[in-house]
């Protein structure tokens, strides 16, 4: 049957080869991530979804989940369709069945957006008056932008190859502190204009120090602006140990898998946790989807707050292509809703 690889290229696999890949992913993921294996019932249901002869697969009635969007305002601009941001949010609400939406800028980093927050507030006010669905403000914490040449602090990516580990750690701690203050600054202005929440997209992309900065920002935001929901979407299935020694409430952040990330975010006060499982482009779609279902399911089971699975390009089992193939995307949605039992995507 026709299926795909993680890079979205079409490949022909037999039923037995798909079953072998599902079994292999189940075992490997359990071993590497130290999480439970999927049950036989879950594996059979997953194989049925993957091998369904229809191009498009959907959930059974009653198993629907809520959807969130990272950077929806840029999606049409990226296609060369010059919708303004208010129009983009209205298109998502009225034409694309969105359950939530997000005000975002093409400059999708908190460090940059804090220089033009009045303009963001102006756009937010119009959107909030003209729409019904919940609207958050989204951007990336992006701690790397605080290092030279873009920021004031020394660049750990240059220090580490020189063996200057202590200096690299100090630079990351300084950058994380400034990033944390920027996140809280943005939250203040988005709360005062009336937005429903704030979304940290690709949190911990620069590693464990960035994750700590985000967690501390969440604590501060929930204390100062309790009317703002905090959504945190991660960037990797485990946190990179670029610093290696930072801890949050006694737990080391480097190497933390998604299920423990959820617990840390819940402890900090986050309202929704966005788990990530990275796609391996050299493996089949079946392999990647099994890994995603397994890790998302376990994360959902241990988390005390809602878990939304990241399912953009290259995550959650969705192949790495900026034109996502609907055969895979629909199977990802269905599997994560029905087998992983996520609260949303």
């Amino acid at each position, binding site marked *: 049957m026709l299926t795909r690889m993680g890079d979205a290229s079409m490949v022909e696999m037999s039923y037995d080869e798909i079953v072998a890949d599902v079994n292999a992913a189940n075992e490997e993921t359990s071993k590497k991530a130290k999480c439970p294996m999927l049950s036989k019932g879950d594996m059979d249901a997953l194989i049925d979804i993957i091998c369904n002869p229809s191009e498009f697969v959907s959930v059974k009635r009653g198993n*629907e989940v809520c959807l969130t969007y990272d950077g929806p305002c840029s999606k049409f601009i990226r296609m060369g369709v010059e919708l303004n941001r208010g129009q983009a949010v209205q298109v998502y609400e009225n034409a694309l*069945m969105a359950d939530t939406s997000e005000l975002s800028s093409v400059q999708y980093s908190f460090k940059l957006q804090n220089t033009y927050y009045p303009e963001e507030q102006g756009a937010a006010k119009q959107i909030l008056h003209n729409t019904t669905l919940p609207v958050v403000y989204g951007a990336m914490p992006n701690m790397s932008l605080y290092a030279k040449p873009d920021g004031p602090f020394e660049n750990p990516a240059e220090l580490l190859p020189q063996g200057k580990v202590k200096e690299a750690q100090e630079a990351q701690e300084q950058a994380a502190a400034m990033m944390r203050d920027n996140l809280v600054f943005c939250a203040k202005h988005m709360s*005062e204009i009336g937005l429903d929440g704030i979304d940290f*997209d690709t949190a911990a992309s620069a590693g464990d120090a960035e994750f700590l900065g985000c967690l501390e920002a969440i604590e501060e935001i929930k204390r100062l602006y309790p009317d703002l929901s905090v959504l945190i979407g991660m960037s990797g299935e485990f946190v990179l140990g670029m610093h290696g020694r930072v801890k949050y409430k006694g737990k080391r952040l480097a190497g933390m898998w998604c299920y423990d990330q959820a617990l840390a975010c819940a402890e900090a006060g986050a309202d929704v946790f966005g788990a990530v499982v990275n796609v391996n482009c050299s493996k089949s779609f079946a392999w990647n989807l099994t890994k995603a279902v397994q890790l998302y399911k376990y994360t959902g089971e241990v988390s005390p707050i809602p878990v939304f699975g990241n*399912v*953009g*390009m290259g995550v959650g089992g969705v192949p790495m292509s900026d034109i996502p193939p609907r055969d895979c995307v*629909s199977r990802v*949605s269905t599997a994560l809703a029905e087998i992983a039992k996520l609260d949303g995507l």
Partner: protein
Amino acid sequence: MGYGDPAGMAIAHAQAAGMGGVRTTGDLVARMMMQKKMRLPEAKKYVAEKLGIKENEMWKMTDEIFMGEKRVELGLGGVYGGQGAKAKGIETKINISRLLDLEINCVEKFKKFSGIEF
């Protein structure tokens, strides 16, 4: 969901597994998860109770025909602008805040800056 064109990403996910947004009850359920940290089954149950939907009628939560009429009746908005839509935008959120017993940030700001109490 992140990178990907709306047809392949947003539409595909929404048609495969989405609650349906303002066509049905997706936005209402999402609010309960975001504001009260409810997990999905609890959020669906809460919204269903507020809408008067019985446990054995949960299919109504994602039925566009039932919810389309219900939303107009309760002033909760929908996808159309005119055509008897009644409430739209901030008006619908005022009604949603009452229905779900929720303090919605922009509704509170509307009250504060307009001086209107309700």
